[in-house]
């Protein structure tokens, strides 16, 4: 390789794409300022919300579009297709041209976003540990866009042809993906439903498919520059697209999943934990049926009551495997039960209370301490036959244990702040009302793959945590109301930015189901503080469940 030529080739390329590159750099800086400034819009400021949403969504989209123009300009300035490229007749080796293009892309299109994100992280007090976890994600995001565009550019002579190819490949991938997803919905609905609730598995699949695209794209680029064998390059391209689609559909290794270990019995005594099923709560309903070809199924759900769960801990059901034994000796194993892993708005009042030094949570749901979930699945025809028969239900429950811990306390005034790792929370506004108060929080946190959840708008369904108002003098605590404040800007930002500034609206009326439990007046608020309680994993355990005289459809 002729390393002395590299700066000149890069300079020439920079001259060639300077206008588009300048525009891309401006957009990058604008995105950095928008996110890094910590600016966020309260839910009441409609006009600002719209403007912020347009910017938050528009800038990344524009950045992507500019890259779609910039990269073909860069590559096709010395087209690898046809016989018009300048360097074919000049004393420049193939490796040198490839190195110049790679250095340009890495130095000017990959590193600047990394640097901008790094500065944004540092300016926003993100911990080093989280920065180390975030930077590979930024790198992956850049490469998963740049490499496929560059690969397609090396296979086309002009921007028009590139655009046609880009649209064709995109349509082909989308169409194939749609067909495969549709097939899964029709023929393996249960697996589809289970998978679609598993955020980390979905992310793992996307990342694995994206990596396939990056590696395959890099091979196409390398092959085109070093050999210019179009046929081989096209074969690599087709294999790459096909394997990316297959990985996206079939990948089952969830490498982002937090490793679940058995509960540590030295801190969490599991031996006395038992589970019982409330027979009066048994409830049958028709299971969702997406395929007209499959037999109708009935889903049986019930409330599970846990006993002897140590204070401060709560349990959730990860999986149920059960079997019915009828009086005539017939045994009926359950079909696949759709577990609802980590249903996030189930907070046990007792566990919450334990976490806040025993202060009672007054407006907690009386059913806290129990978990409602599916216990059995069977063909509707069998259900109709056996629905009134008494049977014995035996099952094994896989349980996830969580302990609740206070991660931050804030005095009830505007400007109060708390820091929990890389999560920064500030009370933006306190609106005292005749009954209760409304708090608008500004929360800033990293949008990491490993901690991502689906966007939640319910304050009780936060990402593994919940906010409470605690008045220690009166020995009273209240949960916020179940209201839904849709924050479009922060929701969209979550999809496009690493650092998310979002507004959270919490209404504390002190009531439950419109019935006042405690009067949250000015005096009560004067002695209150805002507390964030976080659920941390305490490991997994299994419990056997036996329910005699179990009836699939008990008479109410």
């Amino acid at each position, binding site marked *: 390789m002729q390393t*002395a*030529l590299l700066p*000149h080739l890069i*300079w*020439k390329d920079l*001259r*060639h794409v*300077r206008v588009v590159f300048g525009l891309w750099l401006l957009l990058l800086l604008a995105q950095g300022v928008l996110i890094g400034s910590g600016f966020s819009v309260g839910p009441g400021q409609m006009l600002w919300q719209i403007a912020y949403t347009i910017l938050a969504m528009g800038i990344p989209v524009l950045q992507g579009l500019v890259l779609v123009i910039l990269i073909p300009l860069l590559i096709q*300035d010395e087209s690898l297709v046809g*016989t*018009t*490229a*300048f360097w*074919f*007749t*000049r*004393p*420049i*080796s193939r490796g040198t041209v490839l190195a110049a293009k790679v250095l340009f892309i890495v130095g000017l299109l990959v590193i600047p976003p990394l640097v901008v994100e790094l500065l944004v992280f540092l300016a926003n007090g993100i911990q080093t540990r989280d920065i180390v976890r975030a930077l590979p994600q930024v790198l992956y995001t850049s490469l998963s866009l740049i490499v496929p565009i560059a690969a397609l550019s090396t296979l086309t002579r002009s921007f028009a042809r590139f655009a046609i190819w880009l649209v064709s490949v995109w349509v082909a991938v989308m169409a194939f993906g749609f067909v495969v997803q549709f097939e899964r919905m029709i023929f393996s609905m249960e697996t589809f439903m289970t998978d679609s609730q598993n955020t980390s598995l979905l992310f793992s699949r996307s990342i694995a498919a994206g990596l396939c695209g990056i590696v395959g794209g890099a091979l196409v680029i390398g092959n085109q520059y070093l050999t210019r064998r179009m046929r081989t390059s096209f074969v690599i391209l087709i294999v790459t697209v096909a394997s990316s689609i297959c990985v996206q559909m079939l990948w089952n290794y969830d490498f982002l999943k937090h490793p679940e270990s058995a509960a540590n019995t030295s801190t969490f005594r599991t031996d006395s934990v038992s589970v019982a099923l409330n027979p009066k709560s048994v409830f049958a309903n028709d299971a969702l049926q997406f395929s007209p070809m499959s037999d109708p199924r009935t889903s049986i759900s019930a409330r599970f009551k846990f006993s002897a769960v140590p204070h401060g801990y709560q349990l959730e059901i990860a999986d149920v495997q059960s079997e019915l034994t009828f009086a005539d000796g017939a045994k009926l194993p359950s079909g696949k039960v759709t577990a609802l892993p980590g249903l996030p708005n189930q907070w046990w009042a007792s566990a919450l209370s334990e976490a806040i030094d025993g202060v009672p949570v007054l407006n907690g749901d009386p059913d806290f301490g129990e978990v409602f979930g599916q216990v059995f699945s069977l063909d509707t025809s069998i259900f109709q036959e056996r629905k009134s028969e008494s049977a014995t239900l035996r099952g094994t429950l896989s349980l996830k244990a969580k302990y609740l811990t206070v991660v931050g306390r804030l005095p009830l005034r505007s400007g109060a702040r708390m820091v929990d790792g890389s999560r920064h929370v500030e009370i933006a506004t306190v609106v005292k009302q005749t009954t209760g108060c409304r708090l608008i929080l500004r929360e800033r946190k990293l949008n990491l793959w490993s901690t991502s959840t689906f966007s939640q708008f319910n304050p009780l369904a936060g990402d593994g945590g919940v906010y409470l108002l605690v008045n220690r003098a009166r020995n009273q605590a209240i949960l916020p109301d179940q209201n839904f404040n849709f924050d479009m800007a922060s929701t969209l930002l979550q999809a496009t930015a690493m650092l998310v500034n979002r507004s959270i609206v919490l209404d504390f009326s002190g009531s439950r189901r419109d019935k006042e439990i405690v009067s949250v007046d000015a005096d009560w608020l004067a002695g209150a503080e805002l507390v964030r309680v976080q659920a941390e994993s305490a490991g997994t355990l299994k419990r056997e469940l036996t329910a005699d005289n179990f009836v699939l459809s008990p008479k109410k």
Partner: protein
Amino acid sequence: MSSAISTSQLTRHFGHFCAVDGLNLSVERGMFYGFLGPNGAGKSTTIKMLTGLLAPTSGSMHIMGTDVSDPARSIEVKRRIGVVPENLALFDNLTANEYLTFIGRMYGMDRATLSARREELLTIMDLNETGRKLTMEFSHGMRKKLALAGALIADPDVLFLDEPFEGVDALAARVLRDTLQSCVARGATIFLTSHVLEIVEKLCTHVGIISKGRVVFEASMEVIRRTGSLEDQFIRAVGGDGAVVQKLSWLDG
């Protein structure tokens, strides 16, 4: 001393079509060689193979005694040649000054030599007034002159010119012609393709005529002049002398 350019059984197929069919050429050093032929005869394909733009299907080619198709030595060969391809291969977003500087750097020229030659070339080609104007804004003639300046800046031993006079006005053509003659006078070898027989007749010392991928005539200009005109020779060589001239009905009588 070996030839400046030599090919042996050089062949290029495009699918079933044979564009160049076992071409044997020998161009001695210092020659101004005109490579002629009708449209689709294989001129551009030959020049593309010789300059590394296209790989031959079979056969061999040597420039200044070095095998062009040997990837390990192709860079060495390219250091010794200058090319004005059909499409010119300029960079639209560079000025004339920047373009010549870039090419000089690609040939590893030192700063002082590059600067001196660049200024001289820009003056001779009448491009020194173009300033910050980008090559995309140049006229066709200006682009041709700049492409030739780019081919000359490294003082090559062999110059390949594919239709250098096409679309060039008389003034620009004169500049190009004079510059090329100076090059030959200094000992360079020029391999030129053109449709304009008058120019070839004026400039070239030797002529080869290709038809259907094969060399059908080769002689020095002296010999051609002795036996008639280049045009007569060309028409005879490509089989055009017996052709029935079709006339348009509304022009006939």
